[in-house]
């Protein structure tokens, strides 16, 4: 798996970045070709955390396979579970109660905020500012507490099931979310003061890792990476699921396509997520949190595709069913995988420091790429 490390052309240096490296955020292994400080080629080597979840799911029932998806993109595990619940509901035409839909969207958006907070801290750390990481975790901790209160877990949550949610929300849920919103609002301006408006940070981010709209589409980019290049691709807008059709929010779009545009998109998304939560939190309807479903779920023969918007982009689930209790073939389309494929294109000709900044701005989660 390791390439022979040495020189290719005169003066070219081949370096293994990762799988143990501070800025790869996991076991990503990149083989980079350098000419001095300039990056000539980046080649990802994957598979260090490949668990073959797709194969695993072929022997799990439609109720069981949801839980392994929390282990893919662990920063948006609720949203992954949501996608899986949606596809089973679609196949069986289950009507999900309003209350469950509200709770799911609320948890999705909280997850998105938590994920972006972590990304924000990690992004700043990648360009050399260590302090913001701790500030991001201070706020993220509150969301983790809410998650723990609601579903018992802080990272790999399992709460959404076909037909709604596993349990009802905690009695304090509304209050703690509101407290968090007030707290987080006061801190967001701090984020701008500390990082966004910093001239060194802007110099590091602007005009770095530029990807054009055409290339972003061709590389199959999604989420903030594509939106920063001006591609309209928010699944919540294009094919709304659950109560997304009833809430008002803007799709965060930028046109520059550089690291700073991706940064701004994610910052805007946090604000939009807060807007969505504000609209929903006071109006959670009374009623069931779960629809009545059969004990054994069997998807009719055929194939199904559902996608949702995770914190990293378009997450798709494709199920080929033969009518059995387990899927015949299941495919997870992960946003990080496609975003990673554009990394080589973005980094060519930039410096090593830029490579790290670009990787940070792509917000890669390796278990999501390897699956």
């Amino acid at each position: 798996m390791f390439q022979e490390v040495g020189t290719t052309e005169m003066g070219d240096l081949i370096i293994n970045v990762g799988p143990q490296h501070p800025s790869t955020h996991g076991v990503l292994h990149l083989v980079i070709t350098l000419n001095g400080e300039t990056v000539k080629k980046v080649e990802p080597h994957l598979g260090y955390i490949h668990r073959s979840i797709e194969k695993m799911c072929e022997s799990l029932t439609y109720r069981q396979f949801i839980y392994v998806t929390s282990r893919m993109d662990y920063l948006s595990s609720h949203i992954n579970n949501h996608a899986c619940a949606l596809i089973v509901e679609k196949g069986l035409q289950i009507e999900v109660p309003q209350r469950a839909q509200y709770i799911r969207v609320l948890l999705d958006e909280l997850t998105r905020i938590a994920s972006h907070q972590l990304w924000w801290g990690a992004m700043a750390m990648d360009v050399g500012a260590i302090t913001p990481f701790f500030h991001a975790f201070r706020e993220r901790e509150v969301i983790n507490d809410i998650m723990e209160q609601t579903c018992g877990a802080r990272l790999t949550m399992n709460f959404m099931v076909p037909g709604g949610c596993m349990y009802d929300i905690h009695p304090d849920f509304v209050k703690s979310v509101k407290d968090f919103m007030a707290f987080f609002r006061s801190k967001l301006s701090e984020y701008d003061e500390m990082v966004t408006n910093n001239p060194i940070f802007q110099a590091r981010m602007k005009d770095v890792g530029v990807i054009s709209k055409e290339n972003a589409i061709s590389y199959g980019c999604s989420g903030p990476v594509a939106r920063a290049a001006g591609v309209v691709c928010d699944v919540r807008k294009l094919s709304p699921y659950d109560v997304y059709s009833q809430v008002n929010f803007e799709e965060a779009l930028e046109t520059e396509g550089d690291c700073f545009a991706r940064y701004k998109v994610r910052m805007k998304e946090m604000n939009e997520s807060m807007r969505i939560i504000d609209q929903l939190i006071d109006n959670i309807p009374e009623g069931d949190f779960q629809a009545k479903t059969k004990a054994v779920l069997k998807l009719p023969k055929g194939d199904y595709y559902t996608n949702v918007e995770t914190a990293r982009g378009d997450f798709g689930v494709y199920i080929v069913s033969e009518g059995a209790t387990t899927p015949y073939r299941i495919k997870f389309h992960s946003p990080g995988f496609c975003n990673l494929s554009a990394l080589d294109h973005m980094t060519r000709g930039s410096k090593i420091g830029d490579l790290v900044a670009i990787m940070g701005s792509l917000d890669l989660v390796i278990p999501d790429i390897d699956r």
Partner: protein
Amino acid sequence: MIQEKLLSICPAAVFEENTQWPTMNIDSAEWRKLAEALKNENDLAFDYLFCVTCVDWKTHLTMVYHLSSTLHRHTIVVKAKIADRNNAIIDSVYNIWATAELNEREAYDLFGVHFTNHPDLRRLFLSEDWVGFPLRKDYEDPINMIKL
């Protein structure tokens, strides 16, 4: 309307009924020609390849391509049947959709589909000396695989 257009490009295609999106079944040999048309025809303009899947049907393999257009906002699913399972060959589309390069490597790694003209067809997740293709239905691994 799109169906007629596509049938004129690829007369042997069969469309499925009652599907979420128009789904056409073609033979793997026609894939490259169809792909170019899908991308380049102005009223099709399928520029966004968002899911590449391989399905093992025990007798044959199927490559499933989910395509959509960011311009017209329509989606199509193309299922290319690869009849010979032991010598699975299909054209690569990496120069039509850049995302295909890595996705095709994944399909090669896990299903053993050979993509002709692919610039760098190597194992992606597994090590170079891995024997067999794990996501095929007849793959057996007594050590690493846990049967539930």
